[in-house]
């Protein structure tokens, strides 16, 4: 049924509850969440390569707080057939590489923190309050410590520009990711997932 090509990238995330994991949460906010994000600004607004950015840690299954074990950060994009997926990937790479080298400036970091706090509240309120129960249950089950729900904001507060840059450099390496490409209307052999 697919009549539009799509591209996705998945990166392994740092272990949960580590300082790097908190930093990675802010990277997700800065790179891929909302219409102020670096991906949206460059790929949608400036270059018109795609219409929207869909991304997240534990994407499609839950949020960055309600899992345990290894995890991916995924970002995916529908695009027109007139845009080769390599062009889109190259544009993504240049954004990611800049953040790996330079990190974020102070105002972008603060904005990521505000977005994260707002998102966390949204998670708590999700499904008429089930979101809060979901996080309490997750921290009880995975950590035997439901009170972790109260430490999250502090974890994000502690992320420094240096830690953020170091985390980006380590975890947003191309060697730490998988790229998948969906091509409509071609034989399965050509359209199947390509690992790079």
């Amino acid at each position: 049924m697919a009549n539009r090509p799509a591209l996705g990238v998945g990166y392994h995330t740092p272990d949960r509850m580590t300082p790097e994991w908190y930093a990675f949460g802010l990277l997700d906010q800065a790179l891929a969440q909302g219409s102020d994000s670096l991906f949206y600004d460059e790929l949608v607004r400036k270059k018109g390569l795609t219409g929207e950015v869909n991304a997240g840690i534990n994407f499609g299954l839950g949020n960055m707080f309600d899992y345990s074990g290894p995890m991916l950060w995924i970002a995916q994009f529908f695009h027109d057939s007139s845009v080769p997926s390599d062009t889109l990937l190259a544009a993504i790479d240049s954004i990611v590489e800049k953040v790996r080298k330079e990190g974020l400036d102070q105002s972008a970091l603060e904005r990521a923190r505000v977005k994260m706090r707002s998102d966390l509240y949204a998670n708590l309120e999700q499904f008429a309050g089930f979101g809060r129960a979901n996080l309490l249950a997750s921290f009880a089950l995975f950590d035997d410590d439901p009170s972790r729900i109260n430490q999250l904001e502090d974890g994000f507060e502690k992320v420094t520009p240096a830690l953020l840059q170091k985390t980006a450099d380590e975890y947003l390496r191309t060697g730490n990711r998988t790229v998948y490409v969906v091509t409509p209307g071609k034989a399965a052999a050509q359209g199947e997932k390509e690992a790079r």
Partner: protein
Amino acid sequence: MKPVIIVALAILTGAQAAPQQKPPAAGAPKDFALPAARRFTLANGLPVTLVPFGQVPKAAIRLVVSAGNVYENKDEVWLADLTGNLMREGTATETADAVARAFAGMGGELGISVGPDTTSISTEVLSERAADAVRKLADVAQHPRLPDSEIERVKGNLLRNLAIQKSSPQALAQEKFAQVLYGEHPYGRIFPSESMLKAYTLNQVQGFYRTHYGAGRARLYVAGVFDAALLETTIKQAFEGWTGAKGSEVPPLPPASGRQFAMIDRADAPQSTVMVGLRVPTASHKDWIALQVTDALLGGAFGSRITTNIRELKGYTYSPYSQLEPHPAQADWVETADVTTNVTGASLKEIFFEVDRLRKEAPSAAELRGIQNNLAGVFVVQNASRTGVIGRLAFVDLHKLGPDYLSTYVKRVMAVTPDEVRRVANEYLTPDKMSLVVVGDEKTVKAQVTQWAQ
């Protein structure tokens, strides 16, 4: 959102199957009490509703404008969408990326959503930034840049969405069904053609904006935790300069026709998407609440008759549902199901069987009570958020339902009697007036459905 919640609740309940003892009966549904709202109207005619709600330090702001698809001409389908989408591209004094960063810095995002009757401009921000957000949102609504430089890109996004939607049999069925029910009326037009959409000019967008966006055609809502006095002052300052807009008349609805049938061929499709329904009275009608209860019992609720029949007992389909879609002048009722191809006819037979049964015979009090509890409970759950409350208030205002609609809703749902359900089904859900749309493998399905195709 609604079906997801219902299914999720059903699964939660299902997980407790094989109980060792019967659970105690559920408590009686409680009324929904709307927190005391502050309402005022600006000198330019903009009505404002402020609702203190909840404890989480956030505030939702929504400006609802009479600028939905119903105001489009025949050759302007999705012009409202193009206008709404272009309004995200900056204001007279700020570029689009600056506006986006400003909302993000408040913990929110600018959302513009275009519906059949209204367009909403909204955001949800951290409480301490609510006044800033009101100012920014007011700027977007009153002084959109509508830049020519971005129109082709924004159109490209809409064209992509159009192509994605038109690849889904459900969307094709909805498009055809709307056409069958509403004909040449704007409610009958769901999608533009690609060439129509490509041809829109900035001039048309500016024209649509000027005609429909103005203080007298809008309502502002704020719900959440906020400083009410500060917000009231800010709203007055930010919106008092907004002038009116002349608007345009919504064309009258064409008379409802008898049964119509339409089939869209999807060769070798393993499933058929079927839609069965008709026009019914809308939210301002005295029978609306009873109609909602009837819909829930028949096909709307997860435990409804049609769902029990064709999903649970027969296994023809996974997630059938019926719903009422209310517009200010008219609603429609429709049952939708994706059914296995070889039982398309059998599914229709069962759907009509359940409609007929309910029209002849009142449901038992116990069956009705279960549905009423569900409807009342879902109503309260859906109101349990800032945006949920705003959505309800906007609904009440759009349909002019009066101030006590929300507070008396649960009571009125619970007061519907079994015989009222039968009467309402008999009066409004008339099978020979129900139209039928089937998207499926024509060569297999056509013979199965000819019985209803006249």
